[in-house]
């Protein structure tokens, strides 16, 4: 492991000017749980490492009236244990709590999980399920990107040279909304997902599905939405047959690969099964929200 310079900017402007100077020779360090192994294994050989932990409010977790703010440097374990998220943003806690071991979650960050852009990443599934918006800053100013458009492929994002992720904004859910993230892995959290399924449903008072979001992990080059499966749900009430169809549609929409964890065929089959579980459990949560109001 070797790099020439280590920076710890204390303002966003300073960080931008360092990134501008070094361009692709600079790598951002948040928790370091993905960056440091890559430096050690010489997969990356950057000239400069830019630690962002001293940037103002970078680790914020703040529930506001109509949205939640998550700083890019918010630690996954802190998110997974944050009581103020329990009411409206439980799926974000669950997804963050599904990443690796306690030791890793204590340092790994939500922004790092996004910028690492692994198709199997768990923490970002909570953000996709809730329709989060990524706030990016750089030499051209600040811009906002919907989280599902943030990823461009395995390990790549929309971030241009000199840009970096500041925070996420997660809109508060409508009344009658329930969401869940289900991870399927052999050794539990510590393992990388074979598949993961996130689901958010918004119900009308009579139980008709008004909005649906289904997000799939580890079955495409990037995290993906199962749009066809979502369409099947809108305007209907959930029945056993409908759940079957939705699982089928989700399985048909994905394009998994075969690797050391599972074959492509097995992954498709597991998407069918876990989409069913996720949709059913999201509906249970949505119904209990309806009863609360």
């Amino acid at each position, binding site marked *: *492991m*070797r*790099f*020439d*310079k*280590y920076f*710890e900017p204390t303002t966003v402007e300073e960080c931008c000017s360092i990134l501008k100077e070094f361009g692709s020779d600079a790598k951002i*360090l948040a928790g*370091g*749980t993905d960056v*440091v*192994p890559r*430096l*050690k*294994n010489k997969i990356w050989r950057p000239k400069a*490492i830019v*630690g962002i*932990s001293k940037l103002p409010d970078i680790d914020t977790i703040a529930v506001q009236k109509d949205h939640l703010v998550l700083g890019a440097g918010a630690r996954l*374990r802190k998110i997974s244990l944050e009581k103020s998220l329990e009411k409206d943003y439980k799926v974000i806690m669950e997804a963050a709590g599904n990443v*690796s*071991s*306690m*030791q*890793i979650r*204590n*340092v790994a960050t939500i922004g790092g999980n996004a910028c690492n852009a692994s198709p199997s990443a768990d923490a970002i599934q909570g953000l996709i399920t809730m329709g989060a918006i990524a706030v990016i800053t750089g030499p051209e100013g600040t811009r906002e990107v919907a989280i599902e458009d943030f990823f461009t492929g395995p390990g790549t994002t929309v971030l241009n040279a000199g840009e970096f992720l500041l925070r996420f904004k997660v809109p508060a859910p409508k009344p009658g909304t329930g969401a869940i993230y289900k991870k399927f892995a052999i*050794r*539990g*959290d*510590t393992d990388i997902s074979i598949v993961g399924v996130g689901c958010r449903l918004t119900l009308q008072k009579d139980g008709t599905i008004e909005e649906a979001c289904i997000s799939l992990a580890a079955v495409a080059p990037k995290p993906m939405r199962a749009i066809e499966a979502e369409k099947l749900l809108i305007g209907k009430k959930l029945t056993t047959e409908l759940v079957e169809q939705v699982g089928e549609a989700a399985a048909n929409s994905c394009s998994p690969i075969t690797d050391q964890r599972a074959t492509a065929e097995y992954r498709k089959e597991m998407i069918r099964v876990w989409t069913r579980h996720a949709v059913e459990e999201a509906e249970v949560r949505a119904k209990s929200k309806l009863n609360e109001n």
Partner: protein
Amino acid sequence: MERMEIKLTVNGRKHTLYVSPDRTLLEVLREELNLIGTKKGCDDSNCGVCTVLMDGLAVKSCTILIPQANGHSITTIEGLEREDSLHPLQQSFIDHFAVQCGFCTPGMILTAKAILDENPMATEEDIREGLHGNICRCIGYKKVVESIEAVRDGEYKESCGEV
């Protein structure tokens, strides 16, 4: 590469070091401070033998760059022992035969401390969930969990003082 000033509090002692920022916390603990109780296993944050406490939270020191630890308080296995006795967790691991080769033990004990410090009433499930990041390849986990449960249940309070 230019060295930088790093301030660390390790096991209650303050240190000011001048080290290259491309070193890990594990390397600095072992090579600069001679605290070799913290082990180096996979060196890739999978096995958990390098676990130390940073501000009370369990972390894997092999994947923490030393600037990330700057200004923080670190506890290693050497910091648990009392003047005239072992830490309850250490004594319990010995009494319950939770050690075979012993390589994973420092990491296991520090993770166990983090689990009990955060939740003194941790259930077996909580303990197993917390230990997910620590791998043992010889004795297994049953005796480790039993040792931690014994400390949780207060069996070592009298011999070793408060946990």
